[in-house]
């Protein structure tokens, strides 16, 4: 088990500065997920922790030791790749033991480690097969096994589930969560899938264009996104966004105004004191938009998407489509007029110009 400390990291490819002055602390034993769209630098960051990419400035400490220039083998890490990268001409057993063999680990020790990993990942019956004879999920487990036998302090995962179909992905997600619980090792995981991030992480790091947007527990990042980008990236369907103005009502309370909507937002903790009217965007998650017969506002139902255990209802409110998540039976159909409430305790307000949370 080890912590990872990244200080002022910068990585450049040619003239392109992919990561600029990034600092991050990975706590010992946590499952940290690097989340972001393609090209945001998350994979690059992971590879630099692994030592597979050179840094142009900054420092990386693993387990308290400066590893900025150390060889990947000496960093006390294990890594699982997106395409599994299994050695195709070797059996599963050999795949897992090859690295240890080359480095002179005694035979008994190799056997112990391979067996332990095989047991944890249910690979015992597959030890003598070659990768071409395995299914995608099995190959993934072997890749994890190969990383496990290194008995490293930190495990790195580079989008390991993206080559699997949806059902397998869900299954392996649960297995990974279980693995983390049993091993209690530090794990750094890269993905662009926010569902994976939410379910697996102890903390999520949302990245964009080489910069960290927000770090926090899944609940925090989900409920209190720090800017519009993070708000839009997490959650499916995405957060409802309404542009409007934030001002003071006659009684001195802060109000959000947008078209027909006038919402008393005085319970919202605004950090800066309002001097004048501000252009803002209001965000509210679909599950906090409650369709209710005695709702304050009304709109027309435009589209209903049945999802099996819930419905996503799209309501036309003055030209904007707002989504709402409804469980149970529906008391209405398309083109009907419905009334809804907005749970003011759960809103987010963003400055229109800076896109930051107020």
């Amino acid at each position, binding site marked *: 088990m080890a912590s990872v400390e990244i*200080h*002022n990291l910068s990585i450049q490819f040619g003239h392109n500065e992919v990561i600029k002055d990034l600092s991050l602390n990975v706590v010992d034993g946590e499952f940290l997920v690097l989340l972001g769209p393609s090209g945001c630098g998350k994979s690059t960051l992971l590879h630099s922790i692994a030592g597979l990419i*050179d840094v142009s*400035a*900054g*420092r990386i*400490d693993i387990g308290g030791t*400066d590893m*900025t*220039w*150390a060889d990947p083998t000496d960093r006390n890490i294990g890594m699982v790749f997106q395409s599994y990268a299994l050695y195709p001409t070797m059996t599963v057993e050999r795949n897992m033991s090859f690295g240890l063999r080359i480095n002179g680990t005694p035979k008994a020790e190799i056997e112990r480690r391979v067996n332990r990993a095989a047991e944890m990942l249910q690979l015992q019956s597959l030890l003598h097969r070659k990768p071409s004879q395995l299914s995608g999920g099995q190959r993934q487990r072997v890749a994890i096994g190969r990383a496990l036998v290194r008995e490293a302090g930190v495990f790195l995962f580079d989008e390991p589930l993206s080559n699997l179909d949806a059902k397998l992905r869900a299954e392996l997600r649960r297995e990974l969560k279980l693995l983390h619980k049993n091993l209690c090792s530090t794990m750094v995981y890269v993905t662009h899938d926010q569902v994976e991030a939410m379910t697996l992480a102890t903390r999520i790091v949302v990245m964009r264009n080489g910069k960290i947007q927000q770090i926090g527990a899944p609940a925090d990042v989900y409920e209190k996104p720090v800017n519009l980008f993070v708000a839009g990236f997490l959650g499916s369907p995405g957060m409802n966004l309404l542009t409007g103005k934030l001002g003071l009502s006659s009684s001195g309370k802060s109000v959000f105004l947008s078209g027909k909507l006038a919402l008393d937002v005085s319970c919202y903790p605004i950090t800066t004191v309002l001097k004048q009217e501000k252009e803002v965007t209001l965000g509210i998650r679909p599950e906090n938009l409650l369709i209710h017969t005695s709702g304050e506002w009304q709109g027309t139902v435009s589209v209903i998407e049945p999802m099996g255990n819930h419905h996503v209802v799209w309501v036309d409110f003055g030209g904007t489509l707002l989504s709402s998540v409804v469980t149970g039976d529906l008391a209405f159909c398309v083109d009907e007029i419905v009334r809804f409430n907005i749970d003011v305790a759960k809103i987010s307000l963003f400055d229109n110009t800076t896109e930051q949370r107020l």
Partner: protein
Amino acid sequence: MTGNTAPKPPMRRPMRLNPARIGVYAFLLSASLFFLMPLYIMLVTSFKSMDEIRLGSIFAFPVSITVEPWVAAWSSACTGVSCDGIRGGFWNSMWIVIPSTLFPILLGALNGYALSFWRPRGSQVLFGILMMGAFIPVQVMMFPLVRILATMGLFGTLPGIVLIHVVFSMPVMTLLFRNYYLSIPQELFKAARIDGGGFFRIFVQLMLPMSTPIIIVAAIMQVTGVWNDYILGLVFAGRDNLPMTVQLNNVINTTTGTRLYNVNMAATILTSMVPLIIYFVSGRWFVRGIAAGAVKG
């Protein structure tokens, strides 16, 4: 380690130029010398006078550069009976190469197209036999082919040698085009058939325009292969149509009297010029051609 700014990393990145890398470059450079040496010697010899050659070292740069050997090679070297230089061979080779490239490409494309999309019954077997044909040593077929061509009145004629080249190129050309067409999605072909296209229609209007890359590769392979051919030209071309390679060998190996090494080297370069120029200009495609041909079987 409590500083606010990152301290300079203690271990500097190992220098790029470690012993292993030096070894790599050393190997590659010495190999390059080995590969370039003959070219250098060819060029250098062709610009020297015979006296210089006799007295000097084969590696020496010419003291006084002369183009006389080149002129002699082109227009007055003796290629057997006549002494008109190797230029006759140049034009002969041109006349042989051009049709010997166009026809096999067309036929190879048609064959490859038929085999990969239409897949008539027994086409796998047909293809297998065609491929095996590529392995048959040419000597086995030599005499029967001579007789056949003689009966058709084509032995020793230009059409005759072209026909021979076409026949011998079929396996490789078909393989090339078939493999290329296999990488084109079947859906495209099916859509065209639904649109009402027939065998030739689809070929001419859909497949041929899409085949530019492989046609370039096939052309390079064919031009190089036919231009550099010796044995088929020797046997089938006839005295009036001898390709440059045959004439070159005649110039150098069948001279009586003193051997004019500088003329010989000039003639060699002249003969190799066409394929070498194609190679240097189209390097990328050349390599692609090799890789394509390498997906054999």
